[in-house]
């Protein structure tokens, strides 16, 4: 009996030793494996906000004959960190999804992304509408993939019920306040949505700050210390938000409702006006039989950007680790070919980011009207895309929520923003010079 126990124990220990040695040996070698020269990896994101994009990606990589492209859908929380970590380790994918502005510019400054000019044909790159915020030091680092018009929407039925012209959205702040008053008197929630997750506050600020600066470069200077949020000229968006709160124009459930359920309230006729995004327009318009209209945020500012439609795009680029940057560029060009643009529309119901795309395929008049103004007319980039991540998390989102909850004033939000901007400079001294240079580029 004793002998058996000893043997078992010994065998167990031997097995453990073998297991441990095996695992150690396995982990000691890098997970490198040879990849054929014509094989490319593509890390992408977007299915989360544009259902159907996965089907489109699967089909285009299957169609592409010049190389094998291996796509991988990234999780929202790690799009940037996963790429930056892989790039720092010299193992980034050939093609990478890139959000606009600072969300890819930090990777540019770290040398993780290649400039596309010279790799992708100029006319193709320009037609993809990467927007000004993809530029740094005279180079363009992203190709547009699908557009995101930043819009306000209003419910035409509610306007009619309140005695307002459903075909004429308010354009000035005064006209907007007058419309809110009428809607409130008719027993309706004039404006709002949901800010529990904070994004509504970001959008409001993004629309509002565009009315306070003459160029995106001026917005960048709010972080380099050359301008300050304590200046009433730059915390005006939060003062306007405070005005709406104090007048009782915001929907009461706003603080406990998230962004998209909040937009649903406008579509459902429970809130009259609020912020949305162009890619929702086809579905929202269809659901309401065309009763959702798109509008630009009513104008309170006097800057050069005030009153202009805001146009953002999601994009893709080529990493520094691309084995064959020209082959990667050829794939990006392939995505901008008419057949692939059409395929994106078919799979997602949304539009590709390309100003040569034949928009006659769009049937909905409201979507056509929105696209003509935001996508094809004079537009401006989304200035909230220049804010640093730390400031976004610790000032922008909390400030919006607290103003909506009536806990702080617009001026106090400005003071918080200025304090966190200073903290950002202390925490990121290596980024400040890049920001200064970027401000000049965008000026």
């Amino acid at each position, binding site marked *: 009996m004793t002998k058996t126990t000893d043997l078992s124990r010994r065998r167990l220990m*031997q097995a453990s*030793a073998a297991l441990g040695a095996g695992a150690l040996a396995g982990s000691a070698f890098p997970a490198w494996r040879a990849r054929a020269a014509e094989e490319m990896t593509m890390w992408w994101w977007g299915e989360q906000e544009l259902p159907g994009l996965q089907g489109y990606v699967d089909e285009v990589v299957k169609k592409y004959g010049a190389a094998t492209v291996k796509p991988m859908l990234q999780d929202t929380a790690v799009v940037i960190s996963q790429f930056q*970590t892989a790039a720092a380790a010299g193992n980034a994918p050939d093609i990478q999804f890139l959000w606009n502005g600072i969300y890819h510019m930090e990777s540019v400054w770290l040398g993780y992304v290649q400039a596309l000019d010279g790799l992708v044909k100029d006319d193709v790159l320009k037609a993809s509408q990467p927007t000004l915020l993809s530029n740094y030091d005279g180079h363009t680092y992203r190709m547009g993939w699908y557009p995101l018009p930043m819009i306000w929407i209003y419910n035409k039925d509610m306007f009619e019920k309140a005695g307002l012209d459903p075909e004429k959205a308010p354009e000035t702040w005064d006209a907007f306040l007058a419309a809110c008053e009428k809607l409130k008197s008719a027993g309706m929630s004039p404006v709002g949505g949901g800010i529990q997750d904070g994004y509504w506050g970001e959008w409001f600020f993004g629309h509002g700050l565009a009315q306070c600066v003459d160029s995106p470069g001026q917005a960048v200077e709010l972080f380099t210390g050359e301008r300050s949020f304590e200046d009433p000229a730059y915390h005006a968006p939060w003062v306007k938000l405070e005005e709406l709160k104090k007048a009782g124009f915001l929907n009461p459930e706003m603080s406990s409702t998230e962004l998209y359920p909040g937009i649903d309230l406008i579509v459902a006729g429970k809130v009259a006006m609020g912020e949305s995004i162009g890619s929702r327009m086809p579905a929202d318009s269809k659901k309401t039989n065309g009763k959702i209209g798109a509008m630009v945020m009513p104008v309170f500012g006097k800057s050069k950007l005030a009153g202009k439609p805001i146009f953002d795009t999601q994009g893709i680029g080529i990493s520094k680790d691309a084995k064959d940057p020209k082959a990667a560029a050829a794939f990006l060009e392939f995505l901008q070919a008419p057949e692939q643009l059409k395929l994106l529309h078919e799979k997602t119901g949304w539009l590709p980011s390309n100003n040569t795309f034949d928009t006659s395929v769009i049937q909905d008049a409201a979507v056509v009207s929105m696209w003509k103004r935001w996508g094809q007319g004079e537009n401006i980039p989304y200035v909230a895309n220049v804010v640093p991540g730390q400031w976004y998390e610790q000032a922008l989102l909390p400030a919006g929520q607290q103003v909506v909850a009536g806990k702080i004033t617009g001026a106090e939000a400005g003071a918080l923003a200025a304090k966190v901007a200073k903290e950002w400079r202390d925490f990121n001294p290596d980024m400040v010079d890049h920001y200064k240079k970027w401000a000049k580029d965008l000026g």
Partner: protein
Amino acid sequence: MDQTSRLKPYLYVAPLVALLLFVFGYPLVQIFEYSFKQIRGIDGPWIGFRNYELIFGQDLFWEAVRHNLMLLIAIPIMIAWSLLVAILLYDRLKGWKVYRIVIFVPYILAVPIIAAIMKKMFQFNGPVNEALRWLGADFLALDWIGSSDYALWTVMLLIIWREAALGIVLFLARLLNLDESLTEAAKLDGANWWQRVWYVILPQMRVVIEFYAVISVITMLSSVFAYVYIMGGGRGGPGTSTMVVELYIFGAIVRQSLPGIASAVSVLLFLVSLLLIVPLFAMRRRANEEETA
């Protein structure tokens, strides 16, 4: 026993020890190293204690610490509630076996699931407030998750509800192992229910209560991420009212590209947890000794 025989056992376990050191030890050393560097990507220049200076000088960090400390308020409530329920179940309340399962269900459900459901329930126009309004208690229909005055308390309520389930099971397991003759003797001596609980049952449960208190402290300081992430809109909101240290670390590394800062806070959290684990092990040792005795 010769030299080789003495070494043999150590040789057998050496590969596994090496593997464990690689899996747990290496990241730990790396975190300590990162906390003294300004990391971009996977490395950066040595900056001494600058990351610690920045953290200690930031209001938001201290606010996160304060919120973690506020969550400690939940612990006496959890202990009292768990004890009460466990003792009631121990008294063979009719259907106690069913209650025991029902009470433990929250603990086996994933936190994100129950937090998401709880979030829906506590919305301004959610079922909780609708019920309160229906009952005529409109003054109690608060903005539970939308107001920075109540959000942390709402999160605490959820934590108490879920984490107390573990306490109930632990306490009940201990109660079922008690020497019933002592309780019976007290009963024969005329001790009422309260006296039996206070003078007979609780003294015998001291060790398990201490154990539960210590693991609850560790939970409140370093394992509430999932609760606040879901309930606070992923960012410790509204405002920064539900920001806790773990979420601060997550934000620093994932959303702000500041691995050096995240590492420095992780080091602090690790050291605090270590300080708490020492008494935990002491208690477990004492419990083992008591059981052996």
